C-alpha cells in the first residue's frame, strides 16, 4: 500500500499550487503516509457490485428558469480584489499555453 516519497509530496504540492518548504516536504511525507495507510482499509470492503454514492439526496433534474437575476456591480465585484485596473482584476503575468 501507499508509501509516499518526498518527490510524490512535491508533485502533489505542485498540482495543488502549494509552494511547500523543504522542511514541510519531510514532515508531510511522513504524515501523508500515515494518513493514507489509515484510510487504505476502504479497499478491504468487497464492493465490486456496489454502485457509488456521489450525492446523499436522491434528487434529479433541478433546473433554474432562464431568467436574468440581479448580480453584482463592477465595484462590488472588484471590492475584494488584491489589485484592480480599468474595471478588471489585475493579476501577475500568466504563463500561457500560447507560444
Amino acid at each position, binding site marked *: 500500500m501507499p508509501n509516499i516519497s518526498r518527490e510524490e509530496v512535491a508533485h502533489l504540492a505542485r498540482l495543488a499550487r502549494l509552494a511547500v518548504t523543504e522542511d514541510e516536504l519531510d514532515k508531510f511525507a511522513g504524515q501523508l503516509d500515515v494518513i493514507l495507510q489509515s484510510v487504505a482499509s476502504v479497499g478491504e470492503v468487497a464492493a465490486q457490485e456496489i454502485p457509488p454514492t456521489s450525492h446523499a439526496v436522491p434528487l434529479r*433534474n433541478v433546473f433554474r428558469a*432562464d431568467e436574468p437575476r440581479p448580480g453584482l456591480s463592477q465595484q462590488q465585484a472588484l471590492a475584494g480584489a488584491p489589485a484592480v*485596473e480599468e*474595471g*478588471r482584476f489585475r493579476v501577475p*503575468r500568466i504563463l500561457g499555453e500560447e507560444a
Partner: protein
Amino acid sequence: MTASTADVLDYDEVLARFDPVLGLEVHVELSTNTKMFCGCPTAFGAEPNTQVCPVCLGLPGALPVVNGAAVESAIRIGLALGCDIAEWCRFARKNYFYPDMPKNFQTSQYDEPIAFDGKLDLELEDGTVVEVGIERAHMEEDTGKSLHVGGATGRIHGAEHSLLDYNRAGVPLIEIVTKPITGTGARAPEVARAYVTALRDLLRALGVSDVRMDQGSLRCDANVSLMPKGTTVFGTRTETKNVNSLRSVERAVRYEMTRQAAVLAGGGEILQETRHFDESTGSTSAGRRKETSEDYRYFPEPDLVPIAPSAEWVEKLRATLPEMPWQRRKRIQADWQLSDLELRDLVNAGAVDLVAATVDAGATPNEARAWWVNYLSQEANTRGVELAELPITPAQVARVAAMVADGKLTNKLAREVVDGVLAGEGEPDAVVAARGLEVVSDDSALYAAVDEALAAQPDVADKIRGGKVQAAGAIVGAVMKATKGQADAKRVRELILERCAG
C-alpha cells in the same frame, strides 16, 4: 527532436506516404438569456465585470444551479445530430488552475455526456457526401477573458501582467466532438471545413447560438495525426487551437499535415501537444510545454444533482426541431426545380437562406437566385465578406425584382439600383428617385425620340417600311442611347413599327 516550424513537406508527398486522421472539437456558446449556472446575462459588449455574481465569480460559498434552457438546447443539438440522449448523466469538475477560471475547476461533463453517438452528413463542393461520426456532445461553461498588458503585441507571451474580465465566465457551452475521421486523404482539410460549415448551419437552424466564429461563439480545435500508408494504427496527434474562421480550419489542418509529415519523414517524433494557429502566417506553433503531465482529477460535481431527461421530455424537444439544412436543401431543389448543379452553386455560394427569404418577399426563385448567386456573390467576393454581410436585404432584392417584372426597371437599371442600395443610398425606391432611374414610360417623349432616330437614319427607316422588321433593332438601339437606357425596349420597338406602318 522537433522540426522547426518552417519545415514542411510538399502536400502531394504527404499524401503519397501518409493517411491523415482528423478529430474536430467544436465549442458553441449558447444564446440563452443567462449563464449556465447563474442568472447573469450573456450579452456581448458590456463593461468589464458587470455581468457577474457570486456564482460566476467563484466567490466562497456560492453554488451553481443549472439553466434548464441550456439543457434543452443541448438535447436539441444532440437530437439534430442523431445522437442518443443519456437517460441519466452528471456534471463533473475538471480541476486545473488558470486565472480566467474563477473556481479553478471547470464544471463540465466527463464520462457521462448528455448526448452521444450521432452523425452529420456533409456535402463537399463537388457534391461528394461524407458522413462524420459524432462521439459526443456535452455541456460545460466558458471562461473569463484576459487582456495582456505590456510586452510586444498584447499577446500573453512577454506580457507584464494581465487584466481579467469575467463577463464571459459561466456562459453555457456545448462541446461537440467527432469520432476519428479517416479515409479522406487529400480532402482532409476540405472535409474539416465542410464539417464546421455544416455544423454551423445546423446550429443556426436550431436557433441555439449566434455561431459567430469571429466573436468566438463558435470555436474549433482541430486534432490532426498521420499514419503511414498501409498501417491502421493512429499516429500521435496534435491539437490546434485559435482557429477562428472557416478558412482557417482548412489551412490549419493542411499545415499540420505538412508539418507532421516533415517531422516524421525526418525520423522525428510527433509530440502530443497543443498548437496555436497563426492567421497571418498560416502556420502553427507549439504551446508552452507543461512540466507535469495533465491530470484533471475529474469527479462528479457534488453541488449539482444528476440530470435524467424523461422520454416524454426528449420527445417533446424532438418535436421542436426545425427542418434540418439537408432536408431543406432537398425540398428547395424540388420546389424550385433546380438541377443538382444549380443547387450546389446555390449552396456553395452560401445563398440558400438569402434566396429563400427573397422568394418569401415575393421574387421568383430564378430571379432571386440570379441576384444572389451571380451578381451579389461577385460583389461579396470583391469586398471580401460573406454574402449575408452585404448591406442589402432579401426584401430589398425582392423589391428590385418586382420593379423589373413591372417593367419599371430594365435589368441594367436594376443593377444600378442594387449598386445604390449597396452604396448606402437607401431603399430601392429612394435610389430610383434620387438617381432618376425609372423607365421612360411617357409615350409622347418616346414618340419624339423615335421620330428623331428615324429621321437620323432614313435608309433604315425605309427598310422597315419595306417590311424588313428586323432592321428596327438599330433604331431601338439609337432610342435607348438617346434615353440613356431608361426606356422599355419592347415599347420602343412597338412605337417604331407603328410609325413605319402604312
